[in-house]
C-alpha cells in the first residue's frame, strides 16, 4: 500500500453515517474511494453541489457539472446544486460535519498552514480558511515529512490557515490529535515504531502508554 492510499484508508474510517463531508484536492479526494460498504455519506463540492459522484464514463461528462478544480464529476440521485453564498453558509455555519484537507505544516498546538509559501507559491486560500474555521471536524491528510523535514513542527513558519485547532492529522507514519491542547500520538502506521515517529517529528509529541497500530 502506498503512502497516499494508507492515509486515505485511515481517514475513511472517520466517516459516519449521514455526514456532510468536503474533501480537498490531492490525498483528501482519495478518501471517497475507501468509503466503508453500506455507509451513506454526502460529499459537498464547494463550487455548489452536495451529492458529488464519481468521474463520468467517457462521453458522459456535463460541462456544467464539475468539482472545485473544474473537472467533470457526476451527481448521485438526491444531489442538489446551489450558489456560492449558500455553499459557504453551509461551510461557515457549522453544517459541514467534516473537512479533509492537505497540509504544509501543522504546529504542536494543532494549527494548520496549508495555503501559501510566501514569494514562492501564492495560489490563494480558496475555500481553505472557511473550511478550517467552519467545519465541525477538521482532518489534515499529509505526508509526515517533506524533503526530509518534519511537517509537524513546533511553530508554523508558514502563514496560518486559521487560528482554529484541527482535530486530527493522519500521515504515512502516524495519527495525531490535539484534544489536550498539544500534539498526541494516537496510532502508528503498520510497521512503524513509536520511536521512529518521535524521531521523524519536530513537534513535541505526547506519547500515551498504549499506542496501537492503525487497523486498515
Amino acid at each position, binding site marked *: 500500500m502506498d503512502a497516499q492510499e494508507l492515509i486515505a484508508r485511515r481517514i475513511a474510517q472517520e466517516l459516519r453515517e449521514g455526514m456532510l463531508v468536503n474533501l480537498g484536492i490531492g490525498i483528501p479526494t482519495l478518501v471517497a474511494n475507501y468509503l466503508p460498504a453500506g455507509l451513506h455519506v454526502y460529499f459537498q*463540492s*464547494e*463550487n*455548489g*453541489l452536495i451529492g458529488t459522484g464519481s468521474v463520468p464514463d467517457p462521453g458522459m461528462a*456535463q*460541462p*456544467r*457539472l*464539475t468539482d*472545485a*478544480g*473544474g473537472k467533470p464529476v457526476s*451527481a448521485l440521485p438526491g444531489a442538489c*446544486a*446551489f*450558489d*456560492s*453564498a449558500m*455553499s*459557504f453558509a453551509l*461551510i*461557515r455555519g457549522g453544517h459541514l460535519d467534516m473537512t479533509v484537507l492537505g497540509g504544509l505544516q501543522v504546529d504542536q498546538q494543532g494549527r494548520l498552514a496549508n495555503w501559501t509559501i510566501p*514569494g514562492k*507559491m*501564492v*495560489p*490563494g*486560500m*480558496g*475555500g*481553505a*480558511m*472557511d473550511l478550517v*474555521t*467552519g467545519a465541525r471536524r477538521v482532518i489534515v491528510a499529509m505526508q509526515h515529512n517533506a524533503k526530509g523535514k518534519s511537517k509537524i513542527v513546533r511553530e508554523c513558519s508558514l*502563514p*496560518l*490557515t*486559521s*487560528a*482554529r485547532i484541527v482535530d486530527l492529522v493522519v500521515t504515512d507514519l502516524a495519527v495525531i490529535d490535539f484534544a489536550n491542547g498539544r500534539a498526541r500520538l494516537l496510532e502508528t502506521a503498520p510497521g512503524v515504531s513509536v520511536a521512529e515517529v518521535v524521531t521523524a517529528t519536530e513537534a513535541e509529541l505526547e506519547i500515551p502508554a498504549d499506542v496501537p497500530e492503525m487497523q486498515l
Partner: protein
Amino acid sequence: MQTISLADAVALIPDGASLMIGGFMAVGTPEPIINELVRQGRKNLTVIANDSAAPGRGIGKLITARAVSRLIASHIGLNPETQQQMLAGELECELVPQGTLIERIRAGGAGLGGVLTPTGIGTSVEEGKRKIEVNGREYLLETPLRADFALVGAFLSDYLGNLQYALTARNYNPIVAMAADTVIVNAESIVPTGVISPDHVMTPGVLVDYLIAHE
C-alpha cells in the same frame, strides 16, 4: 431589460472598468463576453471573481491578453500566468477567502454595510481590518464589494431576463447579478416568457440590464 448584440454590449465597457464575472474555474463564466473583451482589446480592467481559471479558459483569456490590472479573487493557483504577472508586479492581486469574497459581494448587492466573519481571524487576512467582538467571539468586519459591470453566464433566460443556471455553473452568477451598476447576461438558451416556472427563476429579470441576443 433590453436585448443587445454581443459587440455592442462589450462596447459599453470602457477601459479601466471594474467587472464582477460569474463562474468557478470558467464553469458558468459567459465565455462569449470574455472573447469579445479580448477581441476589442479592453485594458486596465479590475476583475472581481472567484478565480482566474486557467490559460485559454474564461478569465484566463483576459489574463493572457493582459487586459487585467487588478484582480480580487480567492484562488489563482490553477493559472500560472496570473501568478507570474502578480509576482512580476504587473498585476495587483488581492486574495480573499472564498466565503468572505462571496459574502462581500452579497453585501454589496443587498445594501449591507458589511458582515462579520470568523474566517481569517489569527491569519494574515486580518491585517488592516477592524475586529469586532460579538457574544464573546472575535470577528473580522468585511466590507461590501460592488462593480461597474456584472458579467453573468446563465443556462436559460426568458424574454424578460429571468435567469436559470444549471448545476455547478450557478456559483457566483446570481450573487454578482445583484452587485453591479450594469448587469450584462449571456444565456446559453433564450426561451419565451413563462417557460421558466416562477419557482425556478434564480435571478429575477428586473436585475438584468442587457441580455445578449443570439445571432
